[in-house]
């Protein structure tokens, strides 16, 4: 599903040049659950951003679902992103001005789904993450675990092929964290490819494969059995 080859990303300021990704090559197959680990600054978030089409590489190839997307412009990236990728963030990133329902509805609005259909799909997914009873609440009225459940619901509502999760349990206690990881595992079992950046060895154990990174390169890959 994803094949990146010799991917490079370099951040330059007036005085310093930082190599975030150094000729990185990775392949992720459809239906895989991959965890990316590594110390701070190793390039894992940069990789996730490029995989999520939020950032573009300086060099190298990025093939997504058989299409070379490395040179896509912002408009094409946005279009591909909204149809295929769901995001789960450490800090949830819900919009404070929107209710739970409206936050989850948002990706469907951007993909042009009709209102009646949207309502049905949002209710389904809210029910699935067991947050239905809070559908008309605002994010600040929810606990961290509830907020992340909403974020997961939002990530999956469009039935994306790929979910990118950036430290999804980073702001949660262990019990809420486990709930979220269970949810991601369920999604993966239903066929969604998941790539997750994490510092937690515990969380990484939910994945099929761990890619360990250092200085913008993969240093080791562990296959989980």
């Amino acid at each position: 599903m994803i094949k990146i080859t010799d991917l490079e990303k370099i951040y330059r300021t007036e005085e310093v040049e930082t190599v975030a990704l150094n000729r990185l090559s990775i392949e992720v197959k459809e239906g895989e659950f991959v965890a990316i680990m590594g110390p701070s600054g190793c390039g894992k978030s940069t990789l996730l951003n490029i995989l999520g089409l939020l950032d573009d590489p300086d060099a190298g190839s990025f093939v997504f679902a058989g299409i070379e997307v490395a040179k896509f412009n912002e408009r094409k990236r946005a279009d591909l992103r909204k149809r295929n990728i769901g995001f789960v963030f450490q800090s949830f990133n819900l919009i404070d001005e929107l209710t739970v329902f409206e936050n989850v509805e948002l990706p469907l609005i951007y993909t042009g789904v009709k209102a009646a259909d949207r309502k049905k799909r949002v209710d389904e997914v809210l029910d699935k993450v067991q947050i239905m009873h809070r559908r008309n609440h605002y994010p600040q009225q929810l606990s961290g675990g509830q907020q992340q459940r909403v974020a997961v619901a939002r990530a999956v509502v469009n039935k994306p092929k790929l979910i990118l999760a950036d430290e999804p349990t980073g702001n949660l206690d262990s019990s809420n964290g486990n709930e979220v990881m269970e949810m991601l595992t369920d999604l993966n079992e239903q066929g969604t490819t998941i790539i997750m950046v994490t510092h937690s060895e515990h969380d990484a154990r939910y994945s099929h494969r761990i890619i360990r990174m250092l200085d913008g390169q993969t240093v080791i890959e562990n296959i989980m059995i």
Partner: protein
Amino acid sequence: MIKNYFKVAWRNLTRNKTFSLINVLGLAIGMACTMLIALWVYNEKNWDGYHKKYDSVYQLYVNRNFNGEISTGPDLMYPLVSAIQATHPEVQHAVTVSFPGSTLMGNGETRINKTTLTVSPDFFDIFTFDFIRGNKEVLKDPDAIVMTESTAKAVFGSTDVLGQQVRLNNNRNAVVKAILKDVPRNSTVQFDGLIPFNPSSPEIKEAESEWVNCSYQVFLDVKPGTGVSSLESNLINLIRKRTNGENPTTRGSVLLHPMEKWRLFEEFRGGKNTGGRIQYVNLFTWVAVVILIIACVNFMNLSTARSEKRAREVGIRKTLGSGKKQLIAQFLSESVLLALISFLVATAVVYAAMPSFTKLLNIEVIIPYSEPAMWAIVLGIILLTGFVAGGYPAFYLSDFMPVKVLKGTILQGKQAVLPRKILVTSQFIAAIVLISATLIIYQQLQHVKKRDIGYDTNNLIQVKANKDLTKNYDAFRNELQQSGVLSSVVRTSSPLTTILGFTSGIRWQGADPNTQLIIGFLFSNNDFTKTLNAKLIDGRDFCDGDSNTVIFNKEAIRLMGLESPVGREITWAGRQRTIVGVVDNMVMTSPYEAASPMMVAYDNKWSGFANIRLNEGVDVRKSLSLIEAAYKKFSPEYPFEFRFIDDEFNQKFLNEQLIGKLAVIFAGLSIFVCCLGLFGLVSFTIERRTKEIGIRKVLGASVQQVLVLMSREFLILVGLAFLVAIPAAWWAMNEWLKNFNYRINIGAGVFLLVGSITLIIALVTVGLNASAAALRNPGKTLRSE
């Protein structure tokens, strides 16, 4: 999607109350100013617009050529209209109209002076006035009178008075044959009554062959497609053909002044229609635009200042698939919604301000509800304000990179702050220009008001004379003098605040035969200089025993080139006259112009106005009742009407006073809106720098030092605005002052004052906000961080 935009927009507005309040208030003030000015401009531009023949009616003007000097006026000869009707089929209708005059209307005991026009029968074929009773045919009856509704009520107490007789000027009766609705205020042609010319009267019979003296206005209704310039040359040729001999009129040209220009393009210079009130209309149109832009700039500034707060939302939306266009649409929806709310507030403000505004302008402001253009403009204002105000923030915010904002690494560098600084500076440039302009207008007005006009208008009363008063003038004067209320009295042929007569026919020995001086004149009698407190430079005042004597002003003597003028003879109007005195220049016409040459000719019979100089310190009310009693005694058939000359003179400043007042209002509001924006911006800056302020205070900074730190940035911007605004204001106001011959020189003082005012206002605005931050307990602010 749109619903979602507006929903989020509404929630954003209600969550950030201070921000929304500042924006709504600023935009509402901006819009209210724009709407009021727009209404004023609309009314000015639609002046006379209710006349059905608005597009085809012209007033005829003559450019008289006095040896190269062109003087433009609407006064024409009586027989011209019938000559035009006989020879110019392209002129559908033509009408002769007298200049407005006062007519005494009597019914039983009621005696009222009303403004009337004497008109030829085609009057209603050119002008549209609504009949309540009667019809346009009545103007064919020389014994008829047409009254307005108010006049009929004033004279008869009712409008149901067709067929009733009214006594005119105590010398003839006329029959009320038609009643009109009152003349709308937005009509150039104003009257209380219309009287048809009487073709069988000796005056009109004489006027029918008079092609030199010009005392009437002429209006034409021209067929569509008629070439105006060819008609103009045909008409001057007609005048030349009919006039026996050459005179300034035949040497000149005629000008067809279209009805659509009567109100706003009323000035003529060098034979050309050069503008007039339009310059104020244009000026205030710009003021409206500037104020609205200032308010829009507030919105731009505050929105971009809040961008750090909105950045996360932008990031999330982009991650979820929102494109740049959708984000731009979202932010524009917010600003359009804000503009809509502001518009509703502004509408309420406009309605509340309307009575005072119409009073100030002294016009009836019509809100054109039925005009689709008005609704288009309203929608235009909302959308334009929304798009102008929201455009920059929309593009700015939607450009954020989701990766950066979600990481929280978006920081507002110099690039982001620079446009905001430019916007604040531009706002203040506009406000400083407006304040400077206001002060300069005020200075010019004061300068002209304090001008030595050559005579004393205080304690001087003008009473309209009449046939009886003229006959009993000496007895009237003696009676008043015995009462002790007046120091002197003089009769003049015209009011002292204007010159109605001009002549080029004065001849004297040694005059250059090639120069033809135009000199204003009036008739007067004994005690002319004494009553006016005019300064006699040479010779003497008029006195008993005078007959063919004249007094000139200094300017006339200078232009005539006379040395030792007193005792010299001149010839004028078929008589030889002796110059007995020279007075200092007197400003009787425009106080903005240099004094013009003037001649006062002695005439003991002319009936016009009695000018009464009250004794210093007398009780004015008591004096007036004594004057009224004397007036009634010697002319019981006429109503006593008087005017204070200083009030009359002050009428000359009405236009500039109005401009001054409007400038004060709009400059004040613009600086207020600027300060609202500054206030908002400072509060956001302070919010961002709360931690910094806390740390600085912990490290030992005093409140004063924090205040300076917070204020410096903004005061530099205001200072910069000042440096740019001053040359702009100086240039613009110098151009305006060129309209007046008698004017101030713009000094540095006014700009120092503007600088101080702006600085104080900015300082207070910034200080109010910054002091709260500076006084806050650093322990608390740092803990909350």
